[in-house]
């Protein structure tokens, strides 16, 4: 690759990570200001996974995600205004105001949602891959989940089924070392997750999830493998969330020094440093470039907030829409007559 191509790739990854970081930071502020309600889970610190994995997919591939999915959705190209509107509970939200932060959906981009049941999306991902398998489609379904999901029966059932039936699923375990407040070693007898996944007969690698380039390279290789073999693959992406589990989490279960240590591997400064050390930019250029990107991103975020604020609420008369296809019975229920 030429220097220009490297520069373009690296700055592209960096820009997307900054975009997600700034978006998440804005979410904190909006939550504090009661614009966003419900549960809010942020991926600050884990941007390399979102950008490295999801950014590597082709249009035909599918994504099944978790409740910590803002970064995945943004990296997948779900428009920021529709995500913001969703979190504001507005009609223009990507789920019509029915999902919120934990349930972002975009069928047109094959983004099958934030699933708020830990591991609940995994069997669905296997089924999407089964359909592709039965249709001789070369699409890959990427299933993102956390280290907590690895402890659920549904992970083990799904991993076994995908391997047994040779289904094109890329399992991406976003291991941020905590299942809510429970540390990895306190929930797993063996903390080498890739090794355990390999026991299901899958190719499984461990990747430094704080290094976006490593993540992207591993994902590219994994996708190629899955597409060519039709078999599943497992990536354990070791990462860390810098913020608490959710807005309500006092973060009592880990030391601040631990967070500080991990922040030294913050994927954004790490990639900026690489730009300098690889001789692609000078520190001053990085500084200038970054200021420009932040200004663009902040403007995009501000516009998204503004449009979400101005967006209409879904009319209450439509409360019972989208329960079933016609929802005729549901509408009648509101009217007090025949009900479902």
């Amino acid at each position, binding site marked *: 690759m030429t220097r220009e191509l490297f520069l373009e790739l690296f700055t592209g990854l960096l820009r997307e990570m900054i975009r997600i970081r700034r978006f998440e*930071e804005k979410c*904190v*502020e909006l*939550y*504090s*200001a*009661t614009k966003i*309600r*419900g*549960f809010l889970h942020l991926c600050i610190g884990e941007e390399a996974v979102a950008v490295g994995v999801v950014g590597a997919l082709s249009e035909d591939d599918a994504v099944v995600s978790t409740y910590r999915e803002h970064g995945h959705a943004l990296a997948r190209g779900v428009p920021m205004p529709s995500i913001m509107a969703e979190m504001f509970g507005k009609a223009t939200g990507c789920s019509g105001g029915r999902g919120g932060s934990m349930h972002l959906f975009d069928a047109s981009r094959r983004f099958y949602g934030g699933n708020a049941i830990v591991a609940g999306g995994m069997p669905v991902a296997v089924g999407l891959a089964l359909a592709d398998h039965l249709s001789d489609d070369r699409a890959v379904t990427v299933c993102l989940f956390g280290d907590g999901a690895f402890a659920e029966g549904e992970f083990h059932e799904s991993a076994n089924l995908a391997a047994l039936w040779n289904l094109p699923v890329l399992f991406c375990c976003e291991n941020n070392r905590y299942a809510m407040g429970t540390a990895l*070693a306190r929930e797993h007898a063996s903390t080498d997750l890739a090794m355990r996944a390999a026991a299901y007969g899958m190719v499984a690698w461990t990747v430094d999830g704080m290094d976006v380039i490593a993540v992207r390279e591993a994902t590219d290789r994994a996708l190629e493998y899955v597409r060519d073999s039709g078999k599943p693959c497992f990536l354990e992406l070791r990462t860390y969330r810098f913020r608490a589990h959710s*807005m*309500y*989490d*006092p*973060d*009592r279960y880990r*030391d*601040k*020094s*631990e967070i500080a*240590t*991990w922040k030294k591997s913050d994927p954004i400064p790490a990639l900026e440093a690489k730009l300098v050390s690889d001789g692609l930019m000078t520190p001053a250029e990085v500084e200038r470039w970054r200021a420009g990107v932040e200004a663009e991103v902040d403007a995009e975020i501000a516009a998204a907030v503004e449009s979400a604020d101005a967006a209409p609420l879904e009319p209450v008369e439509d409360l019972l829409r989208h329960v079933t296809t016609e929802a005729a019975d549901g509408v009648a229920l509101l009217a007090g007559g025949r009900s479902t």
Partner: protein
Amino acid sequence: MGEFRMPSLGADMEQGVLIEWLVKVGDSVKRGDVVAVVETPKSTVEVECFETGTVTRLLAEEGQTVPVGEALALLGSASEVEPTMPVRVEVPVAVSATVPAAAAVGVPSPAPLGSTSRPPLSPVLRHLARELGVDPRTLHGSGRDGALTRHDVEQAAAAVSTPAVAAATVTAAAPATAAAPSTRPAAPSTRPAATGGAHPGSRHRVRISPLARRLAAEEGVDLAVLQGSGPDGSIRAADVHRATRHTESEQPSPPRATPRVDVKPEATSVAPSPPPMSDMRRSIAALMTVSNQEIPHYHLSLTIDLWRSIQWMKERNRELEMSERLVPAALLLVATARAARAVPELNGHWIEGAFRPAADIDLGLILSLRSGGLLVPAIGGADRLTVEEMMARIKVLTRRARSGRLRGSDLVPPSITVSNLGDQGVDSVLGVIYPPQVGLVGFGAPAERPWAVDGMLGVRPLVTVTLAGDHRATDGATGSRLLKTIDRLLQAPEEL
């Protein structure tokens, strides 16, 4: 100049307590800095600010409860700091001071050890030891690292002297015994309809099916005068239908009045389902069943010498037209009505667990129909009637009843009822009270019998009068007074 506000830390958070300021006036803060500690109902959380600047003023004090969204501090440029502002927190507490000493990443901090090197007693064993009256501190553990095991505790308990064990057993057993009755689950009814039937004392909250209630409203039928044929006397659609049929076909004159029981059993000849039973029979069955099930009856009887009354009656009849001539029943009814006035405890109704005396003497008169069945028209203000007037009323009522043309005024609820079976030739009547009345007076057939009068045996016309009394409302002494009063009145017929 910006504001730092009480943040929302959950959709259910409405306010928070400012526990601690981590900044003071004059401190410069930047976006993302932790500036305060806030307590929510769920936890204590360090909160950050979203602007960069200098703290110019603290608006809330530590310990203060502040609604979400309200300003806690003002931020501005360094020059805006108000030096005169009293600052409660002289020494800002460093963030790191609030957390435990730093531990290396991934190294679990060892669990704090107690004063002894022995592993702590597990909750299960602690419970067991307490139950068995064993002090675990006195025991030596045989487990790993000297840990106490279940065996250690049980063995120690076995070694304890017998009285101590007995005491422990007793104390353990006592609460269990005491708890037993309350923990036994109430047997759920699998037959709600069956158990739902009997509500003591609620009989006069008349049970009416929703359909019957609707039909009655549509047809203008007064539910209050209907007798229910359903379970526990509940009024059902069929009862309303009967009443409407009767009103339409038999009773054009009195509007909105409905007989207590049907007059025309032949109208129900098209019985929809077996067993064949007239509607009237059903009504009687239901009412009498209720009476016998709910009313504790007592029965009294008294034989009365009618010689004077009959003599008086014969005298009167000589003066009267044939059509106006008296029969003994007229005297018996007048005497009963007057007696009821004298003994008001038996004239009235038992409603919702209490006796309600009636203002008037509305004397019910049981009339048996030739076609079978009964009617109970009432003679209002019966105690104010003369014997001749009573005779006239009896004739009219009998005629109307037998022709099915009773009027609404004939069907007021009686306050006491007379059953006169004299014409049936029986000696006495052991009656069943018509609820909600509390007394039923029965007369057998007057007949000439040997009777001692003033020590001499003679032949006299006698009648046996009986009282069926509701023991909830009165006792036998009251009932006796009524019968004795009837007797006394009949011995002075000229005063009736």
